[in-house]
């Protein structure tokens, strides 16, 4: 089956006074129908920019600078604002971190959901309001009739996130982009929110792209994982393969840090973690424990691993690491 979302060699440039800087580079990612893919990586690795590129939300100084984004066989790069508007919210929807900041503070949440419904369907206000009540109920907000008249500041962060989910699912969305779903919510609430999203996505047949810094979340809710570093995908694998045997040295560091954090162990501190990505060669080489001279000369491509279907890494030494010849 053709993938729902097929991103190929995508580049995003940031225009600065001293010329443009490539901040997403050679990024390829496929998301199948009903598939759930997690994107992990530290802040600044380009995860949110990637999501915005898919929705056509990049404004100057940011701009797509090459590559393609095909959604359901249709090319999105270069689409005009009017056409993009038809896709946003209807075919591809977004949920955001800090949900309260993403709701209009001066409108009731009921009205905001109704506006999203009416953005893509020609229904009367009253009918849209009816539907909004149903959506609020579906996302587990108690007493939805009364909550329709609530303003965002009257709702908790978790409730606001549910309102955002209600908007994202107002139109039988095919692809749901979930940006940092756990940011700013406490652990039990974020679990509930994630369960809700997952369950609604399953029942609607919606594919999920889940962006998170939390590897545990990705392990639990996704089938595949893509690791981003410095605007590139450095490893792409099934969740099972990734957590069993990550290959890229950055993935390994990420995983070790997550395990240490879970176990409450003293965090491994490396002064090298503060180093910026390298400008030439492999971006990670300055922080990499197994870097060799060749890493400075060649920027490695994202290459499939021999003998492991669907597992790819952007590392010259991937084969050796995978074979256990060197310990990264």
């Amino acid at each position: 089956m053709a993938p729902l979302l097929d991103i190929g060699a995508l580049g995003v440039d940031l225009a600065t006074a001293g010329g443009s800087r490539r901040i997403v580079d050679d990024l390829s990612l496929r998301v199948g129908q009903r598939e759930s893919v997690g994107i992990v990586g530290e802040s600044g690795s380009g995860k949110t920019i990637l999501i915005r590129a898919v929705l056509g939300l990049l404004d100057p100084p940011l701009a797509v600078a090459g590559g393609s984004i095909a959604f359901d066989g249709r090319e999105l790069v270069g689409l005009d604002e009017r056409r993009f508007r038809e896709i946003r919210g209807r075919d591809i929807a977004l949920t955001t971190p800090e949900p309260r900041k993403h709701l209009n503070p001066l409108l009731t949440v009921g009205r905001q959901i109704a506006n999203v419904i009416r953005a893509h369907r020609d229904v009367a206000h009253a009918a849209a309001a009816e539907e909004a009540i149903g959506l609020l109920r579906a996302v587990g907000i108690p007493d939805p009739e009364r909550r329709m008249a609530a303003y965002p500041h009257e709702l908790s962060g978790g409730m606001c996130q549910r309102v955002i989910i209600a908007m994202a699912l107002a139109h039988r969305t095919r692809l749901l982009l979930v940006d940092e779903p756990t940011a700013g919510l406490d652990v039990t609430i974020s679990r509930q929110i994630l369960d809700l999203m997952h369950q609604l996505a399953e029942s609607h047949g919606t594919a999920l792209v889940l962006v998170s810094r939390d590897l545990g979340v990705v392990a639990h809710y996704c089938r595949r994982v893509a690791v981003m570093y410095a605007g590139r995908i450095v490893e792409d694998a099934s969740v099972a393969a990734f957590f069993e045997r990550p290959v890229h040295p950055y993935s390994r560091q990420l995983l070790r840090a997550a395990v240490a954090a879970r176990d409450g162990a003293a965090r491994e501190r490396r002064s090298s973690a503060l180093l910026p990505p390298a400008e030439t060669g492999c971006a990670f080489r300055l922080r990499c424990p197994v870097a060799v001279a060749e890493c400075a000369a060649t920027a490695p491509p994202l290459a499939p691993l021999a003998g492991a279907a669907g597992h790819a890494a952007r590392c010259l030494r991937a084969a050796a690491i995978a074979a256990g010849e060197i310990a990264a």
Partner: protein
Amino acid sequence: MRLLKYVARRLLVLPVQLLIVSLIVFVLVRQMPGDPTFLYTGPFATTDRVAEVRRQLGLDEPLHVQYVRYLDRIAHGDFGLSMRTSQPVVADIRQRLPGTMELILYSVVLSVAIGVPLGVYTAIRDKGILNRLVFLYGMTAGALPDFWFALIAIFLFFYTLDWLPGPMGRLDLMLAKPADITGLYTIDSLLTGNWAALASASAQLALPVLTLVFIYMSLVLKNTRSAMEDMLRSDFVLYARAAGLSRMMQWRYALRNAMPPVITVTGILTWFLLGGAVLVETVFAWGGLGQYAVQSVVNSDYAALQAVVLLSAVFTMAVFLVVDLAYFVIDPRIK
């Protein structure tokens, strides 16, 4: 219901605020150099005569006694006689306030009616000829003195082109004043169907209003533009866009959220024009309240000055009460 409670609470504080203002004004006015006694007696009066007049005016009493008397009189609606015009201050103000109000009314309404749409437009499109013109205008208007612009406008539209009448007050001298209903000539003549007076009053208003709007609209415009630009960059507008809402809806979300600072600056402009338009009033021989206030200061006209300042205080409080009410209506977060 919520609104009524809010208004009631605000109105309850009003008398207290006024009392404080009246005290401050009363004391400060008497600290000014100059003695009104000599206005009565003339410069060549004998010492006995001066003392007698001081006694008659009550100026020989201690300050607190004078203040209590003053409060007692204004409680009965008596604001005293103006020493300069020999008229009751209330009559003077009734004559002059409407002229200033009429100027303020049209200047503020037009500033908002033109400034807000222009501000929104320039925030939405950051390129284009109109945008450059508006930028140039914003720079210019902020740097020009209003009375100077008034003189240029008179030179151009009256002296050179002869499109509009000269700076001769609020109405053609040959016309009778329209019936006194609100005191605003345009409105009174409209209400009574006095078309000749309406035409003349409007023509007389054109240049001073043009001046004030040209100079002070830039405040409204710049505030609208910057507030709108901020809101267009906000997370909730970005999300509205991500959810597929139309441009128009995104702008409406942004505009509503951009309103509070625009309302504030409109309030400030209204308040400012009550006294701030005095130079423009002078240029156009408008005979408004600003001019009256200045003459009262120059002539140590205590009664007139006190009344004008108190009136300004009431006006200011009223303006900002309206501003707060507008906030209250727009923003559900205000309790």
